[in-house]
Every structure is written in C-alpha cells, then in structure tokens.
C-alpha cells in the first residue's frame, strides 16, 4: 500500500498533467469551433469538398494589416451553373468572417482579389456555394510576421 504522501504526490501530479493537457486543447478546440461556427452560419452544415476553389495568399507576409488575397472558383458562371456566394474566413481573427461576397451569372468569372487583415499566422478559409447548393472550400496557412520596433 502506498504511503499517504506518495499517493497525494501522485494525485497532484496526475491532476497537474491532466489540467495542462486540457488547457491548450481547449483553446485550440474553441478556435476551431469559432471558425466552424462562422462558416456554418453562412453555409449550413453541408459538407465542403476541398475542390474547385483556389485560394492564393503569400506564404509569408511582413505585416498583418495588409495581406493580398486572391480567390478563384472553377465555374462556367452561366445561369444554370454559377457561384452564388464566396465567404472568406480566418481562424485567429477576433471575428472569423472577413468578407461575404454574392455573385451572379453576370459576374462572368468567379474571381476576386482583395486585401485583408490577419491577426497573426493562421489558417484562412475560402468557401464557395453553387446555385445548386453544393459547397466547396480551400484552406491555406498564412505566416504573418510583425514589425521589429514595437511602439
């Protein structure tokens, strides 16, 4: 039988280990949850195939205040088959949804470029909904560095 002291030590250590394990996992999980919630609030629970959407962001950006982004969705953009909407999301930003774009067949091309803000290195997701309800997605990890002089 273990002495009371050793048992207490063991319990303390286990509790510490479990709580340490819980902390980052919980934070990571809630970030992912927030991103998932933001995407689903626009697209519903539909499965998003990793296809057709090309999301282009520089692998490394020197300043998070201005990150160029280019989204292309493979679609003929006819009245029978066109991209109805594109959503752009970032997992670490205080608000996950950056932009929500609605297109029409008269857009001619599902191709958009803009500049966004990224609060640090993170995953960026572009998801597109077709007029028939199918949803496609692309997910990219962007590294954002900071200015050296912190003022």
């Amino acid at each position, binding site marked *: 039988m273990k002495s009371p002291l050793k048992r207490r030590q063991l319990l303390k250590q286990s509790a510490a280990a479990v709580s340490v394990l819980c902390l980052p996992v919980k934070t990571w999980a809630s970030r992912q949850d927030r991103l998932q919630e933001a995407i689903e609030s626009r697209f519903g629970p539909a499965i998003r195939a990793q296809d057709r959407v090309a999301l282009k962001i520089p692998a490394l950006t020197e*300043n998070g205040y201005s990150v160029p982004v280019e989204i292309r969705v493979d679609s003929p953009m006819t009245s029978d088959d066109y991209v109805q909407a594109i959503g752009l999301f970032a997992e670490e930003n205080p608000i996950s949804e950056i932009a929500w774009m609605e297109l029409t067949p008269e857009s001619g091309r599902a191709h958009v470029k803009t500049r966004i803000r990224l609060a640090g290195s993170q995953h960026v997701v572009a998801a597109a909904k077709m007029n028939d309800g199918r949803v496609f997605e692309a997910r990219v990890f962007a590294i954002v560095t900071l*200015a050296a002089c912190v003022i």
Partner: protein
Amino acid sequence: MIRIPGIVWVMLLFSAPLWSDEVTLFADREDLDPVLVRSGYEWLTPESKALQDDEFENPGWLWVERGRQLFASDSGEPSCASCHQTSDLIFSSSATRFPRWSDSQQTLINLEGQINQCRELRMARESFALESSEMLSLTAFVSQLARGQPVNVALTEEVKPFWQAGRDYFFRRKGQMNLACSQCHDERAGQRLRGDLISQGHPNGFPLYRYEWQSLGSLHRRLQDCDAGIRAEPQPLGSEIYLSVELYLAWRAGGLTLESPAIRR
C-alpha cells in the same frame, strides 16, 4: 572572494576609452559610402514591390489624386495651379531639392514648409496642419511629380549647420535603449531585427504608405516612430531638429531616386 591583481586594474583603467562612445566605432566612422546606398525598396517582399509599382493598387495614389484636385483648385482662387504648371520641369522636380534654405524665412524649410509659406504669403490662405489629409495629399502629389528623379539637396553654407545637427542626431545614442540611428541603419542594414529586415533608413520614398499606419504619412511621422521605438522622446512634426535630420538623410541618400508614393512596412 577573488583577489584581482593590481596589474589587471591598471589594464582596465587604460582600456576604459575602448568602451566609451567617443572612441568607439563611431568616432572615425565614414558616412554611408555612396556606392553602398540602397533604397528600402530592395528590402521589400515581391508582393510589396509589386504593390509599390502598381499605380492603381498602391493606396498612396489615393492621396496623390486628392492632391491633384487640391492643387488645381481649393474652393476659391487663387490655387497652386495659378502660379505653378506641373509641366514645368523645374517645378516638377522640386521635391528632390527639399529641404533647402528659404531666403524669406531665413531658415531651412522642407516641402511642407514651402507649401504653407506659399499659402500664407502668396495665397492669403491659412496654412495646412502638418500630417493633415490636405497636407499629405499635396506633398504626395508634388513628390510624385518627381518620381524617378534623383534626390538632389544642395549643401550651401547657410544649411551646413543644420546638416551638422542632423548628422549629430543620427550618430548620437539616445532613448532608454541607448541606440543611435547609425547602429541599425549604417552598421546593420540588411540584417534582421526579429522577423523584420533593417533598411538603410533613406527618405527617398516619402511621403509613403506604411502598412503599420494603414495610411500615407510623412518622414517626420516616421522619425517620431523611430524615436518612440528606441524609447526616446519623439520631437514635434516640423521641428528644427527633424528638419535637420531630413536634410542629413537626403544628403546621405544622394543618388537614390524618389519613389513617392512608396510602400513600406
């Protein structure tokens, strides 16, 4: 308790000058060799370079366009265009020659000072506040006219004391971090400061669009950020010391072409 021999104390005493500022690297340091002068453009990422070169997507041009409007007419006569034709070669390259001596004011002035001097003395209008939207727009417009032309300030006798004051400021350690501009921008240009690349600190892109500001801004605003960055007291915009530093930096950048409105981090 370690017993330090007397000879070591003597050696330390005589080596003291080696640690003090006066006799170190700065004392006989040459100013930046013109051959080695490189614009901050060279330290931008390819995306930022492309942005600077794109006359539509570069946000600095928003200020240039507004400046073009203000230059032509500013809700009433007279306007800058009443006297100045932008096709006039001397005027269109004038941004490369500031800061310079002003006979009427008997001091060194920069482009902002010249614009306000024109407004007050020749147009009977109120001067624009430094760093205001109107002032930035006008300096962006006038500077952009000289884009591609080399920085070309004249070191006349009257401005030499200002040049010297600017040079002294550049080489003087200051702030809580006890850093001199030269330590980063002369000695360590091209090296990294955390994730950032250190440039030579040239003024040839100003006024420029800085990502950190999310706006166009002037050289004096950048100097304030530099001073704040090393935890030194930022000086007022348009102050004589910053004008002096502006002159020294323009001299030091001699030969670099104007890039206004540039893009910088």
